[in-house]
């Protein structure tokens, strides 16, 4: 097989891309299978987990479109301690908003590698998360994630930063008790 340099680079990118897709799909699988503790192991200790609110703004004034993680209220703006707290809460079996637990499906798509810096890879993806619970309560959460994934020689990939863009203004769900 005659692989030229350009194709070699392509192949290298492709292998990285595949590794990352595998990682993101496994993450989705753990969440949907409610293996929250295993999921937490995929999360770096210093994660910044962030989902802004979205505003309707004038064309071009995009800097005001998302709430700021420096000075404003968002939907999520937290670290691993809180994520771990959320997991413990569900695991009590008494977190009524998730008891009985929802049927959740994380569909991850459009995985793009934006940038590689040493051990860190900036990855963009799109998600459609379907939540169905009790008899017929149903929500769609649709949007994008921009992650920084960090490769750790010992323990594999970790999510070091997650910036979630939910494509909604008024939240079209009564609450959010799932992970993105």
């Amino acid at each position, binding site marked *: 097989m005659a692989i030229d340099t350009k194709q070699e680079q392509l192949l290298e990118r492709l292998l990285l891309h595949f590794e990352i897709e595998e990682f993101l799909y496994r993450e989705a699988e753990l969440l949907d299978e409610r293996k929250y503790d295993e999921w937490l192991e995929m999360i770096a200790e210093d994660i910044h987990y962030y989902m802004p*609110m979205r505003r309707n703004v*004038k064309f071009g004034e995009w800097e005001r479109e998302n709430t700021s993680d420096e000075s404003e209220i968002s*939907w999520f703006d937290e670290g691993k301690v809180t994520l771990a707290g959320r997991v413990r809460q569900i695991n009590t079996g008494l977190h009524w908003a998730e008891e009985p637990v929802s049927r959740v499906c994380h569909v991850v798509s459009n995985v793009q590698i934006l940038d590689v810096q040493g051990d860190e890879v900036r990855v963009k993806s799109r998600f459609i998360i379907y939540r169905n619970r009790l008899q017929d309560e149903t929500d769609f959460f649709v949007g994008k994630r921009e992650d920084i994934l960090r490769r750790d020689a010992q323990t594999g990939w970790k999510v070091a930063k997650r910036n979630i863009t939910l494509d909604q203004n008024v939240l079209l769900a*009564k609450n959010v008790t799932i992970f993105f």
Partner: protein
Amino acid sequence: MVMFQANTLRDMVDLEHGTISREVFVNEEIYQQELEQIFARAWLFIGHESQVPKNGDYVQSKMGEEAVLLVRDRKGALHVFLNTCRHRGMKVCRYDEGNTLLFTCPFHGWSYDTDGRLVGVPEFQSAYHGELEKEKWGLPEARIHNFYGSIWATWDPDAPSFEEYLGDFEQYLRPLFQGDDGRDNGVELIGGVHKWYMPSNWKFPSTSFQSDGAHGSITHRSVNVAAIGPQGDADGGDRHPVRSKWPRVHLEVAMPGLGHSGHFTVEEAGAPYTETWQTQPEIEDYYREAHEAKMKRFAGQKLITGGGGVFPNMVYQGGGVIRKPIAVWHPAGVYTTECWRFYFVDRNAPQEVKDAMRRYYMRYAGPVGLTESDDMENWNYATPASKGTIARRYPYNYQMGLGHEYVDPSIAPGRLTPHRAEQGQRNRFARWLEFMQANNWGDMYPRSGGPKPLGY
């Protein structure tokens, strides 16, 4: 509109026996009557002046189901306008916030000044022959009141003043807008208002929030394992800040005839500071100093702390010294509430304090908050439960503490019960009943000037 007869409503809301029909939470005609009788007449919470600091600033808000604009005009005066063009109704402003000189309608281009006047009509001469009476076709404007920086509005020119509307509840509400050191008008809104839809009748959260102490230990049973409070694990993981040990009276308070109520503590000023931010010394220092300044300011006075609700749909928390969030439960159809949550901080606090509070708010409150996500679940499902043919034959039980109310101005204003009771919920419904029956403000306290109604 078909009006529900007074006696039908009184049968449904039997406060003497502490039962309320499920029907009131699900009946479409009752809901329409609420929009007319309550939301078109009561004083409603709009926002805070810190949202529109500069001339020309505006921000969207709601009154009942309807979109309004809070605007600071070219000269600096505040206004609340219905966000609708007088020509064919299109929203004249479709951005959530911004700054502008004019609101120009995207349909036919009528434009309105920031003080609401219709100032531009395309083809005014060529098509309207100069005859359109522009001065009669400005944006509909509400009466407003600025209460220590918070903005309130009513559509009813006949409504009493906001002070009268609030009555003695002023003493309970005023601390909400005080800085951490107790100075009035000391807060600012953190940017970003949580907004979400909940499939629940607006009265479930509006009649119970901060007057339903009993739900906490069950609804929020799971949250302590997450230790979201400022003290972290220190206090058994309590979701609230550490409670002071200073002697204080816990009271359920209700204002008969006004509909406001809440859960408050009353104490003599002078308590020592309670350690709260164990792991963040710089935050701790700030709050300790603020606390001391506050104790000095109020030395010899009674201090009221807590959370409550201003009739009909504004509620707030104020437990501990630190939390100052508001929720407004906008009606959005008989089965849906559009929930808005505003979060305040002392406007002079250092950024790291603002940040610490901001993070705590996000952990606690709103639809994503670890505490309140469970409230949504219960409020949600209480609504279809009120709908069933058989279920509607079984009124809800509002009897907790019924008959144990007392009045003692030496302790605090209003009717009191010891912690816990449902008198606040009964009282909000007593007011609801008055609003639903009165033909106009002339028939209703405080405007009517008659004796205060009993309340429950």
